[in-house]
Each structure stands twice: as C-alpha cells, then as structure tokens.
C-alpha cells in the first residue's frame, strides 16, 4: 500500500543516475519527499526540520555512486542519520545496578500500556532469574488493581496487595518495605495514566519517585501517538527525569515516528518495544528496525548495505 521513500526518491532523481554530485538544487525535491515521509510517520515537525537540515548538509557535494541510484543514496544518508538520532549503538539495556530491591516506575498517558508492560517486564525479569514484585499504585481507574493482580496470577508473579481506598504514595512506600523484608530483588510500580499538564497527579508521581528512589523511570508511549508526543514526553521528563522509553502497540501498522521525537527532545533511549497484548510480546529495542519501518524499506536496506 505504501510507496517506499526510496521509490519516490528514484522518481525525483530520474535523471541523475550515475553521474555528477548532489547539489542544493538537485536534492531540493528529494528533501521535500524526506520531509513528507517523516511527517507522515508522525515525527514532530520541528524534529523533522532540524533533521532535514542535517541531511542537506551531509548530502550536498556527495558524489553519486555507480552502485546506488541517487534516491537510494539519499535514503542511505537519511537512514544512517536517523539510526544515529535514534541512538543506534548506544547502550539501551535496563539498568538494575543498585542495591536490591531495585525500583522501576512505569509512567505515561492514559491507556498507553503501562499495566500490561509491567506484566511483560516482570515476566522478562523472572526469565533472567530475578525475583520481581509488581505494585498496583493506580487507585483511580476502575479495576486497575484487579487488572495487575490478574496478570500476576497468569504469570505466577506476586502482586502487592493494595486497595483502591489507599493513597498511591502509601502503597508504594509500604510495598518497597514489604519487598525488602520478603526478599524481592526488583519492584515494578504501576502508576495511573495522567496528562503531563495535570499538576496534582504529576506531583503525586514526584512524591512516589522521591519515596522509592527508582533506578528506572520508564515512560510508556503508544506507537500511534502523533505530534504531541514531544510535549508529553518533555513534560514527564522535566518533572520526573525519565530514564528510558517503552514503545507499545508496534504490532499494528503505525510507523512509530513519535519515538524519534521523544528521543530527540528527551535524549532518553527507547529500551523496549511492545508487540502485542500477550505478556511475552516484549522485545529489546533496535534502532535500525524502527528506522526501516519509518522509511518503509525492505530490500533497499540490503542493497545499501552492499554499497
């Protein structure tokens, strides 16, 4: 259904194949296509603007190779720049290097996938022979506690016994103490969804953070998010200092360009992606895969790697 960026660029460059260099003039249309492709993938327009500028600087003056069409060559530059922007090659592993019990906090907008990701992470950690405790600290959404308890039952992983009439801060404090006494080495805190502009609820997160001193504060973001992703992520990061991102619902056809925006504004690495509703549908993040997805490339990549 989607025409890939590289196809579009080949049309733009019909005449340039195999001779000459790229100039301001002859890459103008190509850069327009790059811009549109990124905007259509939900990358924030400011991020796109800066990015296209960088690609222009890289591309102008470049010799057109015999082995690649000019379109493919621009795609290669775009691809490499995007991978580097996305933190390709950087360490994006979960940081648990602290005195146990190590706390992990899940935060984000309503419905992003926090509770489900708690379950997925707990399962992932259990497989690595850790002993996780899950803590339901969402007392607002109807049956949110029961949701996490159900996941715990499915996974045979303990869920702290909190009640909807307790205060989230008290729940978290007591749960951490309980984990310490009961020999859990990792504690995953599920928090309620909230908007970054909700002062009261953002304060609540700050208090929880100060009480449990989390090693990781993971911002859970829906891969379908549009242009607002930057403001949301920046809002959470400014108040809390997030340490990483989990990109959920990537099993659909969303391009997931919001992840680029989030990385660009927060500088924080995407650590995991969610690829389904089931609890085993969690994968470690690979920058190059997301970039290929955004650019709509399959076979082009192999071609480029050979060049």
């Amino acid at each position, binding site marked *: 259904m989607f025409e890939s960026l590289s196809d579009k660029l080949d049309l733009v460059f019909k005449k340039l194949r195999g001779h000459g260099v790229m100039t301001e003039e002859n890459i103008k249309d190509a850069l327009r296509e790059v811009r549109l492709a990124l905007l259509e993938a939900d990358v924030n327009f400011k991020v796109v603007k800066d990015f296209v500028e960088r690609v222009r600087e890289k591309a102008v003056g470049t010799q057109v190779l015999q082995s690649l069409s000019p379109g493919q060559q621009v795609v290669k530059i775009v691809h490499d720049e995007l991978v580097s922007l996305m933190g390709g090659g950087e360490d994006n592993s979960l940081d648990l290097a602290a005195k146990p019990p190590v706390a992990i906090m899940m935060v984000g907008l309503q419905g992003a996938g926090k509770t489900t990701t708690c379950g997925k992470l707990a399962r992932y950690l259990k497989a690595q022979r850790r002993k996780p405790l899950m803590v339901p600290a969402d007392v607002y959404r109807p049956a949110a506690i029961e*949701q996490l308890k159900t*996941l715990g039952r499915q996974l045979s992983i303990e869920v702290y016994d909190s009640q909807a009439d307790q205060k989230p801060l008290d729940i978290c404090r007591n749960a951490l103490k309980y984990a310490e006494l009961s020999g859990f080495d990792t504690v995953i805190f599920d928090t309620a969804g909230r908007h970054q502009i909700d002062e009261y609820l953002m304060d609540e997160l700050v208090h929880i953070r100060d009480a449990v001193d989390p090693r990781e504060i993971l911002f859970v973001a829906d891969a379908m998010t*549009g242009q607002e992703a930057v*403001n*949301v992520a920046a809002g959470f990061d400014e108040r809390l200092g997030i340490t990483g991102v989990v990109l959920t*619902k990537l099993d659909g056809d969303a391009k997931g360009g919001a992840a680029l925006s989030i990385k660009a504004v927060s500088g924080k690495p995407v650590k995991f992606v969610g690829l389904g509703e089931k609890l085993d549908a969690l994968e470690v993040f690979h920058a190059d895969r997301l970039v290929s997805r955004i650019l709509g490339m399959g076979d082009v990549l192999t071609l480029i790697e050979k060049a």
Partner: protein
Amino acid sequence: SKTHESIVGRIDTLLLGKKQIDADTLEELEEILITADMGVKTTVELIRTLEQRLKRNELQDGEALKKALKDEITARLSQHTTALDVNAASPYVILVIGVNGVGKTTTIGKLAAKFRSEGKKVLLAAGDTFRAAAAEQLEVWGNRVGADVVRHKEGSDPSAVVFDACKAALARNSDILLIDTAGRLHTKVNLMEEMKKIRRVLEREIPGAPHETMLILDAATGQNAISQAKLFKEAAQVSGVVLTKLDGTAKGGIVVAVSHEFAIPVRYIGVGEGVDDLREFDPLQFVEAIF
C-alpha cells in the same frame, strides 16, 4: 516555553503586520496545521484551497486568511453531522469498537450515565473477555451509573456474551444496549473477524441492530487514525466517532480527515476520566480550540 505556545498565538505572530500574504506565510501555516495532527494530506489540501482563494484576491490580509482557514476546516467537519437518535429503536444497540486503550470502556460508562440521566433503562455487555479485568472495569461503571452488566468468564467467546446480552435486553425491556469490545488493532485479521461475528449475532438477535457502530479515537493519535478508520469502517460499517482525551494537550486534528474522508460524523468528545466528562461534538468549538 515555545512548544506550548498556542496556535493562535503563533498565527498572530506570523501575520502581525503582514498585510501581504506571501509563500512563507502559507508554509508556516502548513506547519501549524501539521502540529495539530491534521495530517499532511489534509494540510496540503487546505493550503491549496487558500492559495486559490488568494489568487482570486478573496483574502486581503492575515485576519481574512485565518478566518478562511477556520471556515474550511469547520466545513469539512460539518458535512456529516447527523445526531444520534436513540429513540429510533428499542432496545437501541450501540456497538463500541476501537484499538487498544483509546477509551472504549470509559466512554460506555459516560454514555450509560448520560442515558440514565435521561431516564432510560440501560444494559451493558462485557464483550471484552480478553483483557485482564476488563469485565470488572465495566462492572464498576455499571454500579456507578445504575446499569446492569451481562458478563461471562474471562476468556469466553465474546459473541456468546453478546447473544446473552441481546436476550437480556429484550427480556428486561432495556431502552439501550451498550456493547463493550476488546481493544484490537485494525490490522489483525482474526480479531477483526471476531468483531464481525459479534455484529452478525447482533443483526440476527435484534432487528436493525447495531443501530450505531461507534469508533473510539484517541485525540493523541497521529496519522494512524486514518488507517484505523479505514479498516474498521470496511469491517464494521462505522456510523459515528467519539474523540477521547481532549482534556490533554493533543488537538485531535486527525478527526478532520477521518470525518471528511470516510463521511463519518463525530458524535461526542471525551474531556476527562469522570462520569460527566462527555460532550456533544461541536465543530465550531473544536476548530476554535485548535486555533
């Protein structure tokens, strides 16, 4: 900070003192529309329309340009505005669908509260038998608003729940039957088939049902909403849209394209997590809020 600046602020800055409208102005307007998630295609169309009107000398200054833009967007949203008439049938059956986490269950709770306050007898069907504690969530809403809930065990067949709910709605003389369904990504063929089966059960058990098939969209969603609307419409004849989470900072501009391209009216907007946080959709107000 700069990113939080309102769009009207930005347009005003942009047009301040610019009696003459040049290409740069249009280009910046284009960016402003894109920031509201209006989408590249709709944005380009809107700008093209403005350009034509400029050429015909219809727009003399910034004010006129801004007004023209608002009018163009409002017109696209107002093309399809049939209101929901729940008195048209009894029970009036509303099937609520959408991707994961957009606010289906919450919207059902709010709708149920609204219909209850109008003196209607409301029945809820827990058609999400997959997600952990989905039925419990709906039951909390049912208790809150005074509506019965038909549910089965987790993991059971959703069409069996819907079948029972139809029987119950008829037996209890319910005025309204609201059907919750599991979140599903529109690209998952088996889950879309499951939804079609739910529809078939409804059609068979209650003549004319579902009277409304409501697609829930999250205001924070970007371009993917187009694909959601397209595939859900193909599979389930979507007849209305609800745009949730407009109480955040996202503008929800993608409904302009969704409503226009697929000829689906936007029925309501969600403006919070509480029982009263549902509003009738008003195109004019919506457009004003974008600018």
